[in-house]
């Protein structure tokens, strides 16, 4: 069965990432099946996680963008975190169908392209049309090539950062196993627990910053600024 999948071009990384998606979906569906006003059990745990993440992203992205685009950055964080940690499972990379998805360049590239396209879509939606592209000419018009280059480098650097770090770690751990198979690799694996968390955090944080930059209006006086002012008028 595995050979048939390999012939179709389906790699171990793809199988693991699909499995992780299914596991996360199953847990979330079970947790949210009978939602209660006063949560208990699994729903309680999920609410704590989501609330902590939301406070964190709001503090980075600002009140408006942080609340509105919280779902995508939090999903990226949770998904990439679990994908990074799947490389620490026993026999990961040696069993068929189990390998850390982030250790192949295609997975981070896909994630980074999602962020790239989403950033442009957010910019177009928040500025109500192509006015968003004015922001490329914003400080001074002749900086346009540099601003364009900066936009295009974002997905490349996101991809390479995630891929390079996780691939480098996995390679170092594998090399340690070849040298001394007992005891020593644990040090590197303990470090890799921390690194997996930091890389997932950095990826989603940068995605959040790019999105909140695109959500910032180019000319001002846009809808969400108006809605922000409504409570003040009501008080007066």
């Amino acid at each position, binding site marked *: 069965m595995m050979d048939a999948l390999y012939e179709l071009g389906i790699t171990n990384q793809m199988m693991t990432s699909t499995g992780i998606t299914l596991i996360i979906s199953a847990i979330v569906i079970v947790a949210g099946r009978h939602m209660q006003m006063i949560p208990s059990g699994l729903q309680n745990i999920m609410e704590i996680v989501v609330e902590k993440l939301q406070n*964190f992203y709001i*503090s*980075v992205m600002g009140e408006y963008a942080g609340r509105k685009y919280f779902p995508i950055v939090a999903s990226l964080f949770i998904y990439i975190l679990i994908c990074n940690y799947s490389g620490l499972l026993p026999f990961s990379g040696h069993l068929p169908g189990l390998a850390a998805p982030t250790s192949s360049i295609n997975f981070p590239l896909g994630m980074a392209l999602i962020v790239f396209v989403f950033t442009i879509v957010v910019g177009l939606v928040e500025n109500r049309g192509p006015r968003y592209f004015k922001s490329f000419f914003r400080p001074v018009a002749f900086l346009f090539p540099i601003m364009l280059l900066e936009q295009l480098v974002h997905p490349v*650097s996101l991809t*390479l*950062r995630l891929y*390079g*770090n996780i691939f*480098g770690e996995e390679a170092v751990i594998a090399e340690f196993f070849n040298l001394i198979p007992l005891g020593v690799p644990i040090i590197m694996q303990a470090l890799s627990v921390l690194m997996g968390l*930091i890389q997932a*955090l*950095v990826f989603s*944080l*940068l995605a959040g*910053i790019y999105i909140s930059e695109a959500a910032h209006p180019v000319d001002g006086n846009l809808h969400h600024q108006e809605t922000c002012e409504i409570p003040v008028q009501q008080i007066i």
Partner: protein
Amino acid sequence: MTLIAIAAALAIGLSTIGPGIGQGIASAKALEGMSRQPEMASELRTSMILALAFMEAMTIYGLLISILLLGKM
């Protein structure tokens, strides 16, 4: 052949020096700030991780170049 191997080693070896020094300075300053103003610790930590990630990108580019060079061997 050996030249490419040396070049790959130099690419990753040299590209770790700059970011290593930079990350050391950045985290030292951030720790100093955290110990002076513990109430700012969480904000400083976020900014520090972000700055470290940007510096680390340089090393990752070096790693990429050395992997590309090894592919040429």
